[in-house]
């Protein structure tokens, strides 16, 4: 007999519905608290009447409270939840697809490309819509470029794709530096730098109209193919022998994760570490099975980012860029998680 346990126990696997309920309640309370707190405190009952004010007239509600909730906090909270969930799901899918625990959704250069797109647009215009479109488009372009570079070599292995992604990311980071270098240091440069640090500061309902469906769409597709990610994580050759159209399904997963990352950068700048760390937290809870992992990663990622964003905008007088906090928290947490042996990876 081997010394290893007969069964690797994951608490959240045996109590999956309980875990999902607990995490949903956590997300719900985080949402409520996030809507309440801020420079302008709103009691819970007013939040509900403000949200319902579109359907049920509530004459007692002050227009200021209504505006704070409906036009400012609600779109921001929804955006944070969607970005947190989407980046975590994309990270879990990529770590499975690339069979590597160090992979994050921007491994193929999407964040670097999107960051450059945003920086370029900020340099040229003041228009927020153009900035977002540029960010999104350059995100897609960077991954397309990585894909094309990897195709140049006859062996189109996953490793070549990842290496091409690193090349493309380096290229766009250099171009971003160039944009920063030529930008007017008094007004343009701070705007670019702040954007790249990541913030949900200026999310409006109209931002959500475009990015929201993209994020939701990406989550839904990855949720639907989540069992196939298990099969793909056995390696391309095994997956093909098991009747999987590897090229097609790899493309679907890469496209979904890329759309998610590009849409995220387009509304909130670069928020790192979520897609890298949260899937590991999910695996500690429920094990490696993506069928269970994807929903849990979405819930954990949404709650985590919402808590971080609420802290970022309330602890100090001026808002702290959220990308700084996710990195400050994410890096040590990740180091700790990798030290733990049972993270759902081979040891």
């Amino acid at each position, binding site marked *: 007999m*081997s010394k*290893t346990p*007969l*069964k*690797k126990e994951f608490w959240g696997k045996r109590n999956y519905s309980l875990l999902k309920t607990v995490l949903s309640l956590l997300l719900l309370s985080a949402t409520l608290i996030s809507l309440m707190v801020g420079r302008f405190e709103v009691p819970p009952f007013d939040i509900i009447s403000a949200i319902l004010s579109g359907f049920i007239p509530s004459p007692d509600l002050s227009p200021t409270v209504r505006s704070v909730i409906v036009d400012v906090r609600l779109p921001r909270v929804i955006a944070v939840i969607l970005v947190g969930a989407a980046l975590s799901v994309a990270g879990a899918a990529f770590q*499975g697809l690339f*069979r*590597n625990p160090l992979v994050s959704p921007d491994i193929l250069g999407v964040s670097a490309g999107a960051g450059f797109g945003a920086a370029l647009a900020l340099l040229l215009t003041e228009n927020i819509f153009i900035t977002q479109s540029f960010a999104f488009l350059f995100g897609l372009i960077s991954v397309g470029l990585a894909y094309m570079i990897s195709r140049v070599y*006859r062996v189109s292995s996953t490793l070549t794709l990842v290496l091409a992604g690193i090349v493309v990311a380096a290229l766009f980071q250099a171009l971003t530096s160039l944009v920063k270098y030529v930008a007017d240091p008094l007004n343009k440069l701070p705007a670019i730098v702040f954007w790249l640090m990541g913030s949900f500061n200026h999310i409006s309902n109209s931002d959500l109209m475009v990015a929201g469906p993209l994020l939701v769409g990406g989550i839904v597709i990855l949720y*639907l*193919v*989540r*069992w*196939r990610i*298990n*099969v793909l*994580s*056995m*390696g391309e*050759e*095994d*997956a*093909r*022998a*098991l*009747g*999987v*159209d*590897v090229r097609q*399904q790899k493309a679907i997963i890469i496209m979904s994760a890329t759309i998610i990352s590009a849409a995220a950068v387009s509304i909130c700048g670069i928020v790192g570490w979520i897609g890298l760390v949260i899937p590991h937290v999910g695996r500690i809870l429920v*094990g*490696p*099975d993506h*069928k269970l992992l994807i929903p849990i990663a979405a819930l954990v990622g949404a709650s985590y980012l919402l808590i971080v964003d609420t802290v970022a905008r309330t602890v100090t007088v001026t808002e702290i860029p959220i990308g700084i906090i996710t990195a400050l928290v994410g890096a040590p947490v990740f180091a700790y998680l990798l030290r733990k042996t049972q993270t*759902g*990876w*081979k*040891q």
Partner: protein
Amino acid sequence: MTKPLTVSDLSFRYQAKGEATIFSGVTFSLGKGEIFCLIGPNGTGKSTLIKCIAGLLKAESGAIHIDGEDLNTLSPARSARIVGYVPQSHTPSFPFPVKDVVVMGRSPHLGMLSSPSDDDMRIALEAMNSVGISHLAERPCTDISGGEYQLVLIARALTQQPRILLLDEPTSHLDLGNQMKILRTIKKLSTQGLSILMATHFPDHAFLLSGQVGMMMNKGISRVGSAEEIISKEIMQEAYDAEVCIMTLPGSSGRKICVPMLSSGNDPVN
């Protein structure tokens, strides 16, 4: 009746221009419940041939028909319902429980968006039962031995409910007990009607399985026949450049064994 597997005049080379042909003119067929052992020196293309039949590599010319249909015209899912492939063992990345790995064999029967049902899990459990690994069902596949993992991969291929089973050196890296366990399993599966193509480095395994033997050398399958015909002193000398002694096992009903020798004229019996 069409044979489960017919390979005709198959040749293969890696795509990069100027690369030498690995094999050409490979022709053989496999009937229902038959076992075909591929033997031959390293680098003669045994694994490559098996990967071509599994649809993992594309042959340069020639044809592979499974169940009477051209492999090239079948979708990955359709061919995986007919051909099960057991790769050479490699360590998986994720510690999936064994039963989760085995049930992946249902993929060719499932739509892209579906997950295995209870029925699929039942088929997986039956497959595990038939190769004798039911007791491992909940164990992480990263924590079991090489022999056990090989059986897991066989069970996974059986879960595809194929008609043809391809095994790429299923007994390499295994101890004697595990080798025999695998061979017993293969023999049992063939009596149940599964056609089996297996690459092996052990001539004795071909004797034990008593099916057809194909000797891969000189860029093709140079000889096909029964184990007794192919595994002879002369052919083994030619293929492996090694001295062997073929003997009938004393006290058996004509079971042959192949004994390697370090130098010629050194009969181990005397």
